[in-house]
């Protein structure tokens, strides 16, 4: 059976988020982008409206919607600005869904529920100044001291660094492990723990209206109740979180392609050269057709990944494909959109230059496009196989998700 239809609930949820982004974010986005500041009203509003817990079960403070709706929401958010979707990637995809998949019942109540309700903001701390794609070379450590762990290390390029209350932090509990990635463990570090400091990075090419920064742990004492999963399970946890974060990046990038397409079709019908709207020129039409093709393909790829998540089927390869394709093509689409707009597209009088700057980062974070190509080739050759996990991401079950208790 093959069914491409969305339910009325999914469509209405996406429509509501679209309205919010257009009404409350779009009018001031250029101003905050120029100021390199996050609009302080945005996160509280996303929390209040329930967007930060869209796909968490109601019993954990969420709205009880499915994984496909999460994708649709991310598409609508990034269509207006990438910073909104980045919030979803780290708060929902990389942190909350990780706690939902790997956390104990007690941890779901302590961390996931306030995050889904938007009372606490969440971030994901994997990347370090010297460790990006090469995760296993991380230098952050968690040393046992009595019952507690003492964490030291610095994380870099962390979205919501100065805003988040909960950091899903990866550190080595066994720095001598062989292979090295088996020495990594995951912890929930709380921003108010003594020794935690953070700061924002300015001068970024894009996502300027968002918080991106560094987080430092200096002898931070973390109780064992904050360890997510078992010791040595951190690498697997990090990778499964990426399966969810990348899903939000893919669906968001799809929204960015749509934004480029919409801006270009509008402008091409208004702007006249050689006595007619530029939409009449075939090379402009070609760009529009390509953007439409990229949009359709990217959307199909992320919806397939969302469907697999709903079914409870592992989707590392499919999500990686969606993320690689959608982000590469969102950059292409924004590039062509600037070209359609000509010199006007080069100034921030129009939105497309922001689309171009905002699209670039996603080709680097959550797996560079190069890493995704290695992943795809690995699966194609049969070198890479998904092994069963101790904790799989649960399939979407509306009864469980929507029940109060």
């Amino acid at each position, binding site marked *: 059976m093959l069914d491409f239809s969305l*339910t*009325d*609930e999914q469509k*209405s*949820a996406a*429509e*509501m988020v679209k*309205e*919010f982004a257009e009404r409350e974010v779009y009018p001031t986005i250029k101003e905050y982008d120029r100021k390199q500041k996050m609009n302080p009203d945005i996160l509280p509003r996303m929390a209040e*409206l*329930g967007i930060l817990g*869209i796909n968490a079960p109601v019993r954990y403070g969420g*709205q*009880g*919607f499915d994984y496909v709706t999460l994708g649709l929401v991310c598409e609508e958010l990034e269509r207006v600005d990438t910073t909104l979707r980045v919030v979803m990637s780290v708060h929902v995809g990389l942190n909350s869904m990780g706690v939902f998949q790997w956390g104990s019942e007690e941890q779901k109540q302590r961390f996931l529920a306030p995050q889904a309700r938007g009372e606490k903001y969440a971030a994901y701390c994997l990347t370090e100044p010297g460790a990006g794609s090469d995760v296993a070379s991380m230098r952050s450590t968690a040393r046992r001291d009595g019952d507690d762990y003492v964490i030291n290390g610095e994380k870099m390029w962390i979205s919501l660094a100065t805003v988040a209350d909960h950091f899903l932090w990866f550190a080595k509990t066994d720095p001598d492990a062989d292979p090295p990635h088996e020495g990594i463990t995951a912890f929930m570090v709380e921003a108010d723990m003594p020794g935690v400091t953070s700061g924002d990075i300015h001068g970024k090419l894009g996502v300027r209206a968002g918080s991106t920064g560094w987080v430092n742990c200096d002898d931070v004492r973390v109780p064992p109740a904050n360890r997510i999963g078992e010791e040595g399970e951190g690498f697997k946890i990090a990778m499964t979180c990426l399966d969810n974060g990348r899903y939000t990046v893919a669906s968001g990038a799809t929204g960015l392609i749509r934004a480029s397409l919409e801006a270009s079709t509008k402008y091409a019908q208004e702007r006249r050269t050689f006595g007619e709207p530029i939409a009449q020129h075939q090379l402009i039409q070609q760009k529009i057709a390509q953007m439409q093709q990229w949009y359709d393909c990217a959307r199909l790829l992320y919806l397939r990944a969302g469907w697999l998540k709903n079914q409870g089927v592992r989707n590392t390869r499919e999500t990686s494909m969606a993320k690689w394709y959608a982000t590469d093509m969102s950059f292409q689409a924004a590039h062509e959109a600037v070209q359609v707009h000509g010199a006007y597209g080069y100034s921030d009088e129009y939105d497309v230059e922001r689309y171009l700057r905002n699209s670039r980062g996603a080709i680097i974070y959550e797996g560079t496009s190069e890493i995704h190509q290695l992943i795809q080739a690995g699966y194609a050759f049969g070198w890479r196989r998904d092994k069963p996990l101790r904790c799989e991401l649960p399939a979407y079950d509306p009864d469980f998700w*929507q029940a109060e208790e």
Partner: protein
Amino acid sequence: MKVVVCVKQTPSTTAVFSVDGSGSVSWEDPGGKPHVVNPWDEYAVEEGIRLQEEHGGDAIALTMGDEESQEALKTCLAMGCTEAILVSDPAFAGSDTRGTARVLASAIEKLEDVDVALFGKQAIDGDSGLTPMQVAVTLGWTPLTFVSAIKEIDLDGGAITVERLVQGGKQTVTTPLPVVISVVKEINEPRYPSFMGIRKANRATIPTWTAADLDIEEGNAGSSASKVDWSNIYEPPPRDTTVEIIEAETVEEQAKILADRLFEEKVI
């Protein structure tokens, strides 16, 4: 208290209105969203929900239209209305505002004990703004039009105090309940449908009342009863305009030339 919010499903605000040579009207929406709750009515829905939240009771969304109008009612439920009723009958098709008012008034009477019937000040398609007044006349209730704030409701004493926007100022009016109110956008900021509300709305069964349920006799509604004749619909001819770009060395000089020209043309 019992509040009824009368809404209309209209084309979306981004729809492009056009009339062909034969006078047929079409509303095409490139954004692909064919119909919405009339944007003016959203303020009425918000006010109805706020009254219900404050005073308890019901906020009931009511619309007259075809089956598709259920979508508008679902939006009202998703925003927080406690119930929704669709009034639909082929006999109502082609009603003018008077016919529509008779049908809505009859439905409001059937609901019994309604304290306040809320409307948006007009619909973005027909734009007449007549229906709230005509409903009030039919019911024999006090009409309060262009209401920008509901100041006080005294349910025990059966009175309401509102602020109306009138030419050049505001007017405070106190009158006995029940009343028909049409609201302006200054009254509130409509909320979005909530996620929980969306789920509830999509599962709701919306009752449909027909002409028989409302005792509407032939000749009181529908095209046969319509006193308004839309015999000739056409797009207004484009106005002859000229554009003049004012050039000067500085913005101040440009502004001065512009001000002088506006005085000359007696615009200001």
